[in-house]
């Protein structure tokens, strides 16, 4: 068999930790090959080895039949391997063509070059205007710029790191068309993701890593989404299902909330109205940067609101701060973990005290009962399976997923009547995400209300009974999911209703 890239028995260790342990992977020409795995499974280590930014301890690679050991990313690019990173490296104040030319060697920005950009953009359906300033572009368009920049190097292998995590459903399907076309033209693609449905749609082969080891090389269509997920996390996933949807009267409502942002680059909130019933899970979908942060600040109480806007259990809570809101049994999990939901340089036990309603008995008259704080921290750690050496471990030393589990647990042990949570599983591996989702569902089954703000549409769709979309600071009414709900959401997300 003629492989484009052959990777044989790569091993790479960091101290005692084997990030890649005897991993082999073969990419056929013109194929879209998925690299699947949870956080820490060794995906990025393997990619760094391929892209020349890491030297493996053992193992060898063959590129187009010849022995291949890139010394650095430059070397890898020279030989025809390009990569689109998860975080873009574009200058916001420059135009698209200027950005592209900056990333290439030995070319000048002239009419020929611009024409070439337009040619690629037409050929692969990468809709882009070369003269536009990158700062004005959506995330999806920026990604297209990055892809064109890679294509101009005529790569034979394109590595894409979690490309769809920032895209709307429409942008995702456009991207897939582009990638299929590229593969047909002879550029194979290594597609890193943990979104299994996408992988099943797009990829012809998949390599699954777990704990640095190769678990399976397979054809993704031969397995169900759940089977793939279970191979990835190495244990059974629990199906998400509400056992008891028993909604009651409205417990929380927002009426006509508008606010101009203090921040020059912030989003103004326009006339937002919403209500949440007891026992229900309401979702706010939308691409990041459409007012989610601004809304969250007001919901938490970091910024107070005028009377008549925010109401909880029949009372006006607009002028209460977050601590006072918690006393009424409203709890919050913000998106940003380090520096917002947790203090990076403090231990978990101290971080417990950020959320300390009186009934938790962590403090009385302001005096801290450290014994009790310790007990509660232990409880969160064991109930929510937080991997940590001790309760004093600094928040910043925990992995993102672990810290998220801690933060979710910290709020859930208070039995909130209303939980407002932003991006509950952002950057969290599939197994932990599954646990967090279950915990949220269990809370709602008990009769508590939950408001979820998330960019992850799958998450919103699988958890929420009622879905709104936030776009450019405006909130849609609840989307009717009975017919063409997903299309409707997709349109609302890009702000083009009807």
């Amino acid at each position, binding site marked *: 068999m003629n492989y484009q890239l052959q990777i044989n028995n790569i091993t790479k260790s960091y101290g005692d930790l084997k990030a890649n342990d005897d991993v082999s992977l073969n990419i056929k020409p013109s194929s879209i090959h998925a690299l699947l795995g949870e956080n820490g499974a060794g995906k990025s280590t393997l990619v760094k080895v391929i892209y020349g930014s890491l030297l493996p301890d053992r193992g060898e690679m063959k590129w187009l039949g010849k022995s291949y050991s890139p010394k650095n990313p430059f070397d890898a690019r020279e030989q025809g391997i390009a990569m689109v990173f998860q975080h873009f490296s574009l200058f916001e104040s420059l135009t698209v063509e200027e950005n592209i030319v900056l990333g290439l060697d030995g070319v000048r920005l002239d009419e020929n070059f611009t024409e070439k950009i337009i040619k690629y953009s037409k050929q692969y359906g990468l809709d882009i205007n070369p003269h536009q300033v990158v700062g004005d572009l959506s995330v999806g368009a920026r990604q297209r710029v990055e892809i064109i920049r890679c294509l101009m190097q005529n790569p034979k292998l394109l590595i894409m790191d979690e490309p769809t995590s920032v895209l709307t459903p429409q942008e995702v399907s456009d991207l897939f068309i582009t990638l299929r076309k590229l593969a047909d033209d002879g550029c194979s693609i290594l597609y890193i993701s943990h979104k299994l449905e996408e992988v099943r749609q797009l990829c012809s082969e998949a390599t699954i890593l777990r704990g640095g080891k190769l678990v399976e090389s397979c054809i993704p269509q031969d397995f169900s989404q759940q089977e793939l997920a279970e191979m990835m996390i190495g244990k059974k996933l629990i199906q998400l299902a509400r056992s008891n949807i028993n909604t009651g009267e409205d417990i929380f409502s927002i009426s006509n909330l508008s606010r101009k942002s203090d921040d020059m680059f912030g989003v103004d909130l326009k006339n937002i109205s919403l209500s949440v019933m007891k026992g229900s899970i309401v979702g706010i979908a939308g691409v990041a940067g459409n007012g989610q942060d601004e809304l969250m600040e007001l919901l*938490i*109480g*970091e910024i107070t609101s005028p009377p008549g806007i925010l109401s909880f259990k029949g009372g006006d809570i607009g002028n209460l*701060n*977050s*601590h*006072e*809101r*918690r006393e009424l049994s409203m709890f*919050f999990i*913000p998106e*940003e973990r380090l*520096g*917002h*939901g*947790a*203090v*990076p*340089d*403090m*231990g978990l036990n*101290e971080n417990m*005290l*950020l*959320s*300390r309603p009186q009934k938790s008995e962590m*403090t009385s008259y*302001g*005096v*801290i009962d*450290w014994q009790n704080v310790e007990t509660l921290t232990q409880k969160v750690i064991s109930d929510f399976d937080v991997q940590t*050496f*001790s309760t*004093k*471990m*600094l928040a910043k*030393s925990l992995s993102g997923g672990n810290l998220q589990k801690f933060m979710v647990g910290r709020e859930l042990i208070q039995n909130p009547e209303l939980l407002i949570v932003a991006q509950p599983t952002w950057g969290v591996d599939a197994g932990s995400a599954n646990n967090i989702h279950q915990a949220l569902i269990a809370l709602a089954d008990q009769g508590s209300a939950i408001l979820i703000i998330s960019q992850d549409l799958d998450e919103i769709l699988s958890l929420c009974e009622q879905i709104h979309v936030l776009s450019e600071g405006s909130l849609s009414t609840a989307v009717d999911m009975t017919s063409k709900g997903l299309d409707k959401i997709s349109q609302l997300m890009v702000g083009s209703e009807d």
Partner: protein
Amino acid sequence: MIRLIPRVENSTAMILLSPLLALTLTAISAYLIFVSILVDIEVSSVFYTLFVEPLTDSYYLSELLVKAAPLMIIGLGLSIGFRSGVWNIGAEGQYVIGGIAGSAVGLYFYDVEGFWIIPLMALAGILGGMFYAGIAAFLKTRYQVNEILVTLMLTYVAVLFLSAMLQGPLRNPSGFNFPESRLFHDSALLPIIWEGTRLHIGLVVAIILSLIAWFGIKKHIFGMQIKISGSAPRAAKFAGFNDNKTVWYSLLISGGLAGLAGLFEAAGPAGQLTPGLPQFYGFTAIIVAFLARLHPIGVLFSSLLIALSYVGGENVQIDYNLPKSITQIFQGMLLFYFLACDILIKYKVVLFKTIR
């Protein structure tokens, strides 16, 4: 190759060892400086005079404690404020205003007997310092004016205000126009706790205050408030702490304590208000606070160490004719090494064999 690797938890061993390491490095550097500048003088005997002699004699020891008391009180206040990221650099000014306010009360009740006079003066001193630091708090919370600049510049205003007061309303009417106040009467003088020395009750107050501060920081949610506001302002809001209140608390506490120290200095060792009241304690206390790692109990020890360098420094001036700046060099090096060594608490040093 040497590399620093972040630790998962702060190292308890290093929290205790790093001050000793810093002291050792300071001693080595001081030794090298003395060796290079001293002619015909035995370095070891200078070291003895600087660090050991002050501890051998009851007079020196009492003077050391007299100097440590104001450093402790101011350092305590600063350590609380610095924790919250509010940088009160002008404790010297609040110390002077506190001294003036407290002394003015003492002089107003001149020749009136009563146990209540000293507490009243102390209260006036605290309020004076609070008022002066409150100016910075007001400007910061209302207009976002940087508190470092305001507190520092107000220090110079305070010193000029002192001299205006001493040439005007507070001047001794029978003092031959010297810019000094009357000598305080007995009820306005701090009780002496060590007979035959100048050591006054301020030391006891300082120790009690540091225990209270330790309780507040360790056991009260207030300690968390200032700590979180300092290291993660957004998380402080998330926890429901009002950031403006934190600024006010920090400045009022550090200003009030500096004011108290100023009054203790006037009603203690000086016994009157003189232009010599400002002695740089307000600035030196910044070093005290950092040497103590902003820990209230640590302040007790770091102020003793700095006081030792003051007394020892005066002694080498007298005995060996060395310049006064020796003391400051020593204090500066100590702080420098101390801050540098503290990195070992959060990071561990790993020796790598270079690859390739």
